[in-house]
């Protein structure tokens, strides 16, 4: 992505002789130091993510059920066949996509409003920022409980306020609305901050010039602000889409996937930890990993194309 921190003014030795076979001693020492410095981070990240995902892939090729260890066997891609032909998997893909689509979409709109408000507001800037940030700091599990108890018929204030007589969380639609509102509440501040960063890059002079030419604020928003913010919007969408696609905490706290809200992460953890089926659970994990990779790839392609005219930062 565009975000490679530039090395400003450093390493002049290698820059002067880019293709020379014999590096100067200084450049060699610099490389050695660099590798020593990054080694701990690289080792930790590889050991704790790359190794387990390979391990998950190997497990996904086996019949591995902790309840029946004597049946363990290498079965090739059979698990993938079972998962991909199972209606449960496709139902959970759909649930995950619905939650992701609506949460991220609503967040983008509210996040943009929050960012504009934070950008424009002259009075009590610090207070506005602090209040808008609070949901970001609150534990997802806590946020989910707060919204769940707010929606529940027995305890909540929401059914009373809207005159709802049946438990909203006992229906599919109600559960989705509640889960999505909880997600939106918790993560809009993050979205707003990323958008605020992009908003700060839009020069005031452009708006002044357009005002002189008689553009309305609505026109200025769509013709100036949005195009210039495109890279920031795409980054915010990328981060939040991938994050929402992995949704686990909120769904587990609300009803652990009941009423057709089970998502892919919940499916993976159920297979692994409740049914102790490491083979199938790992297959779901690997497929989820691949899906996340595909989404990231598409975004980065789009992002790269959109961000290139503006160049690096």
């Amino acid at each position, binding site marked *: 992505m565009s975000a490679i*921190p530039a090395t400003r003014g450093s390493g002049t030795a290698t820059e002067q002789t880019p293709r020379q076979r014999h590096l100067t001693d200084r450049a060699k020492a610099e490389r050695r130091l660099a590798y020593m410095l990054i080694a701990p981070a690289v080792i930790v990240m590889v050991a704790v993510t790359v190794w387990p995902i390979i391990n998950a892939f190997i497990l996904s090729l086996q019949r591995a059920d902790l309840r029946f260890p004597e049946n363990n066997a290498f079965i090739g891609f059979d698990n993938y066949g079972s998962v991909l032909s199972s209606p449960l998997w496709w139902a959970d893909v759909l649930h995950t996509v619905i939650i992701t689509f609506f949460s991220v979409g609503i967040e983008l709109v509210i996040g943009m409003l929050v960012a504009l408000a934070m950008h424009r507001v002259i009075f009590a800037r610090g207070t506005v920022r602090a209040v808008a940030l609070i*949901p970001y700091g609150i534990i997802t*599990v806590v946020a989910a409980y707060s919204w769940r108890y707010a929606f529940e018929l027995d305890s909540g204030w929401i059914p009373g306020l809207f005159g709802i007589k049946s438990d909203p969380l006992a229906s599919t639609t109600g559960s989705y609305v509640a889960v999505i509102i909880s997600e939106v509440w918790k993560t809009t501040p993050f979205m707003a901050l990323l958008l605020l960063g992009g908003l700060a890059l839009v020069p005031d002079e452009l708006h002044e010039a357009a005002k002189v030419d008689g553009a309305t604020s609505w026109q200025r928003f769509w013709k100036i602000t949005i195009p210039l913010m495109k890279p920031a919007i795409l980054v915010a969408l990328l981060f939040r889409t991938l994050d929402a*696609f992995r949704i686990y905490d909120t769904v587990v706290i609300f009803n652990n996937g009941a009423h057709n809200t089970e998502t892919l992460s919940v499916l993976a953890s159920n297979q692994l930890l409740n049914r102790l089926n490491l083979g199938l659970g790992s297959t779901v994990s*690997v497929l989820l990993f691949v899906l996340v990779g595909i989404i990231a790839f598409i975004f980065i392609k789009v992002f790269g194309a959109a961000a290139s005219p503006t160049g690096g930062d």
Partner: protein
Amino acid sequence: MESTFQKRLGWSGAVILIGLFALVPVVWIISLSFKDPTTIGDGNFFPTKVTTANYSSIFNQSIFTDALRNSIGIALISTVLAVFIACFAAYAIARLNFPGKNILLIASLGIAMFPPISIVGPLYNLWRNIGLYDTWPGLIIPYMTFALPLSIFVLSTFFREIPWELEQAAQVDGATPYQAFVKVIAPLAAPGIFTTGILVFMICWNDFVFASTLTSTNSAETVPAAIAAFPGASQFTEPIGTIAAAAVVVTIPVIIIVLVFQRRIVAGLTAGAVKG
């Protein structure tokens, strides 16, 4: 010109709405935590009968007090380790020329987007075999790992802003690169390191995926996992009051952090995400 006042009024209205939306769930959970068991199901937004029984109840249960200790200890250790390791890598990225720098940044970004649940199975298996299941290190290791990419991105952005001539000056005066780092750069980098620490702490404090899958008892269960496992008065009653009280207790430190360090959090998040 004539619409300036209206516009300001409009934005003020928007700000108030945003504030309400942000604060209502917080006030609601606080209000629930002070509700008496007999009125907890009345659906009133504010308690009609205020009690602190829920708080004294959770502080008398080891499931909560142990979880609080685990949460604080595990989050702090993970934060210190992640920021420490990330400092070295970020220094190399901001400061040194070496082949593979882009690969390192892209790989970190990949890990930042990694679905944690994908490695829960292998870790669960391995941790059980080597005795890390349900221990502090069993959570610290994944927390530290998932905090590293953000730490590296945020720190390298901050490190680029440091006047590096000072380091060269120190080296000219005979300091080794290591000395130049510790004596000259580290003090200048401290604010960025602190900001990164806040963000990382909040990530570790928030985790539920690993906490709920890689622990099973009071010895390592953190608060988010413990709250979800709170026992009710009977099998069929949800312990709403105690869950709410526990939720408020773990929320207070974060709200204080957010209020005190909001400027830093905004700077860190935008540095890490937009530029990173």
